[in-house]
């Protein structure tokens, strides 16, 4: 019985370690403050390259670097509720199709990915994205307050320069309270425990 218990804990620990340990290079490659997006041209990549990229593989090789970087789309175009609620809002399939009804992709690899989206839309089957940032349930993060205070382009402060990420990965450990607090100290804003924990 005792053995079983230990095994259980070990599994938990192993998974936790694997998941918690960030790729070594991440912090070293911490992107500099986003450069003017004009200069961004997304690299040509195919879905086969996604395995080599940082961050979890998504069901569709969705390119933030193309949408947000090359085409300079506002984050809020898709993450529509970030300015009004604590939830950033995952774009509905309808939002995607709003453009991709017409836009079918410039090369075969893009077309293949967009076809996945169109198939899913036709079959009324939402795409199951792999979640990258999950805030612990005992903390509350009001996205809207941060967007209000720091402006609509401040997303990168926590999420990194998504405009240059072909595949999104976790840049900062948002569940490390020091990460939050250091910023709050620097800006001399609320550090009360119950600002977030309730």
């Amino acid at each position: 019985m005792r053995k079983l218990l230990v095994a259980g804990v070990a599994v938990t620990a192993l998974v936790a370690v694997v998941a918690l340990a960030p790729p070594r290079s991440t912090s070293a490659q911490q992107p500099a403050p986003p450069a003017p997006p004009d200069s961004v041209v997304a690299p040509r990549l195919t879905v086969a390259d996604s395995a080599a990229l940082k961050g979890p593989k998504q069901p569709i090789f969705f390119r933030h670097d193309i949408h947000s970087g090359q085409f300079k789309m506002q984050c809020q175009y898709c993450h529509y509720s970030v300015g009004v609620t604590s939830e950033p809002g995952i774009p509905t399939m309808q939002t995607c199709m709003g453009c991709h009804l017409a836009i079918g992709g410039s090369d075969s690899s893009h077309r293949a990915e967009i076809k996945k989206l169109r198939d899913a839309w036709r079959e009324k089957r939402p795409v199951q994205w792999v979640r990258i940032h999950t805030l612990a349930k005992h903390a509350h993060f009001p996205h809207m307050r941060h967007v209000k205070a720091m402006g609509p382009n401040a997303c990168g402060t926590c999420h990194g320069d998504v405009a240059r990420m072909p595949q999104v990965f976790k840049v900062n450990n948002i569940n490390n309270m020091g990460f939050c607090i250091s910023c709050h100290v620097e800006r001399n804003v609320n550090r009360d425990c119950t600002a977030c924990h309730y």
Partner: protein
Amino acid sequence: MSDHTTRDPIDRRRFLTVMGVSSAGAAALGGCSTGKVEKLIPYLVQDPDQVPGLPTTYASTCTECPAGCGLHVVTREARAIKLEGNPEHPINAGSICARGQAGLQGLYNPGRLKFPMARHGSGHREILWNEAIDRLAAELRTAGNRVAVISGAGPGTFDTLLESWVTALGGRLVRYQALDHEPLRLASRSVFGQDEIPVHDFAAAQFVLSFGADFLETWHTPIENQRGFAAARGFERGTVAKSVYVGPRANLTGINADQWLAPTPGSEVSLALGMANALLARGRAPVDAGALSVVLAPYTVAKVAEDTGLSAEAITKLIDEFAAAAPSLAVAGGIGAQHRGAIDLCAAVHVLNYVAGNVGTTVKFGAGVKGGDGYGALAALERSMAAGEIDVLLVHEANPLFTVPRAGGFKAAWDRVRFKASTSLFFDETAAGSDLLIPNLHPLERWDDAGGGRNHLAGLIQPVMEPVYRNVATGDVLLQVARKLGGLLAQQFAVPSYQVHLQNRWAELARARGADPAAFWREALQRGGVFGPAPAATVRLAGNITIGGPTQIDGDGEVVFAPYPSSMYYDGRGANRPWLLENPDPVTKMTWQSWVEVNPETAKRWDVRDGEIVRLTSTTGSIEAPIFIYGGIRPDVVAMPLGLGHSEYGEYAKGRGANALDLLSAQDGQGFLPYLSTKVRVEKTGGFKKLARTDGNPRELGRGITESIPASLAARGLTLKQAYEELGKGHHEINTERELEAITGFREAQVEARKFGDYAAEHPMWGMVIDLSRCTGCSACVTACYAENNIPFVGEADVLRGREMSWMRIERYFEGGEDGEPFKASIIPMLCQHCDNAPCEPVCPVYAAYHTTDGLNGQVYNRCVGTRYCANNCPYKVRYYNWYAYAKLAFPEPLNLQLNPEVTVRARGVMEKCTFCIQRIRGAQHRARLEDRPLRDGDVTTACAQACPSGAIAFGNMNDPAAKVVQAAQNPRGYHVLEEINVRPAVTYLARVVPGAEA
């Protein structure tokens, strides 16, 4: 530990394993479990009503009792998470009772039927919906007109549809409410020729006299009554209406009254007629009341005293006080005092109101409230069933196999009916006895309307979310069955769906008012309905009024048995909702169990103690339940709450407690069921059951927790201390000189400390004021707190260990009731006092309990390591510890869908307590910041204050001089509980004002 693990479907080891490798992280699990692979699943199409993270509120109408209160249903991510009162609704004006809020636990009840079922051998098996409709249609086809329907649905579109459906089939419809007010309606008919239940204006009354009517619990429209009662007693006008309760047992209404009179059960009518007689003699009555003198003349004070056993002085005093108040209000007709003479009693009270000139002022006719067809109609149907005249019986929103006493022949008659169908959402007794279960949708999942039976009110019920289970609304079942049956029936019910039928009917309503149907519908949907002004009918005394005298209680026992409706379980429908099972009974503070109330004197005579199990035997049956010694009951009466003792009705209700109805004969008492009708024998069984009561010590022991002040002194603006001095009660100095020195020193240190860090800036200072003159102890706030703050219920076993988690609790203290002392009770809501000088804070070794910059006593769950030092040091005992992972036990699917996403679900080993609804404070601050404005008074209110039907709780920023709460706190009646320990609470209580010159 073993006790705990056996309750767990997953043991701890397996739980850990599962936790590690899968994403099955239930909402109940907190922690930084970043190792889980979670999925983000987008909407296909954006619902225009839903923004993730923002609540969407829908107006609807409550159907938990026939009162018809308006609801605001708060939804998040398209699921209902809280029920609140609709501020625009004339009945409840934004407040809501405990039962109403627990409607959510009906919606998400784990015992809900997930699909239609048909009898299969001794049990039931799942069938498809089209099979169920076919089956019902086939049975109806063969039955011809030998069809009957028992419906508990109140007046409204569904009721009219059902009536025409049954009529088209040639069958019979019986509208049956277990807790109906037939005697009151029948008395209105005999006294005023008006076949309706009057509406009462408690707020206008200067004197409230109740003859057994539990108007704060279940009688008529409890919230409306309570709002009025609080207004009459709240001392806003500088006066306070006196309240007297007449009945064998002091219920919540009784303990809120200033005086409790307990005449011989059955003799109340004599007191009412005696009072009317005296008032008539004083010449204050309307002219046509003279005809009553023949009826009233025999009821002299001496006769009343002889009949009731009350002293002549007490009767005269009551008459004098009642006569001096104008307008006054007398009410009657409560279930707990419904004996065979109930119609006479209600008629006598009508006469008393008429003689006192209250009819038309505090007693109003014209709204047309009818109630059901009455128990007499059900009894008549039962005879037809027994005679084999009914082949198909449909039961809708009723549970007659539970609410009709078993001693009668209802079950036998039921068994003679060839085919029974039930539309119950749950597997209740009636469903268990049915051949076909066609579960209705919950009112939060379907279209309907309800107006509490009042002509001028029509409340809409709209679906606020996708159904939890894919069932079919009974309105649609009726239409589909009619279509299946074909012929004329199909032509008559050709409308495609019940929703269309409802809209058509509302379009007629709109056209009748000359309004555009579409706009009318849209506005009604937004506002929750159409609320016209109350019509008034002038009534005159009928001729030939005869009113019978006192009634005898039958049976061969030693004591009278008084079953009474519980303010939590109502007619038994609340027994499957843990919020109601764990919300203590307002009078006894009992949870999860049945009990028998016995007077201390009687208990001494019988040599029984609290918890001793006794057997009660009447001529029709016997039940066993533990003793609860209660001073608020006559020595020759024992009382028991109704609503428990279910043999089915889901895991929470089944097999819990005893059914008090088992002692009653099912005999029809001229159109109603006489509940107070039998005497019982009581014998010891030798068994014992620890009572799951939450009141700790039921007496105050001079601690000065609840305070009261005589109206005459309060009117002069005296403080409590001055009042004590005036009364010569010698209120001693709270603190000694040395203590005062320490207090001053401490204050200075505190002021110093406020100069540093975050604390130096300007912040709000949250505070609360609770007016004990208004609070009735109804416990609506308790359920509101459970719903808002994801508070888990702990169950009977843990309540017995004192581990209930009620952040907000109502403390009830008894006085007297023994050795000839008059019985009294006082009530006070108790929650975290958010002390400025909080004793819990300095003892926390990890700073989990600390003072926030905005004056809250913060509790950081993720910091807490569970030493429980804070709870030990709390003088108010308002900190609650998670001994087990209660959340896992309390929110089994689909109950977890109710959880408020704004509040952390606490884990095991964590201390928790009232936060002043900090999630609401932070939410309001976020909104204000987004709108670039400062926080305004009224932006934040706590869940308890919002729900309170009495308006007893005010909440706001104490640093805002314009805030209502600041003005309330400056009331001279204000005091702090346990002021002498200098913890400086943020909660101010206002002493209860009692009429007269004596506290």
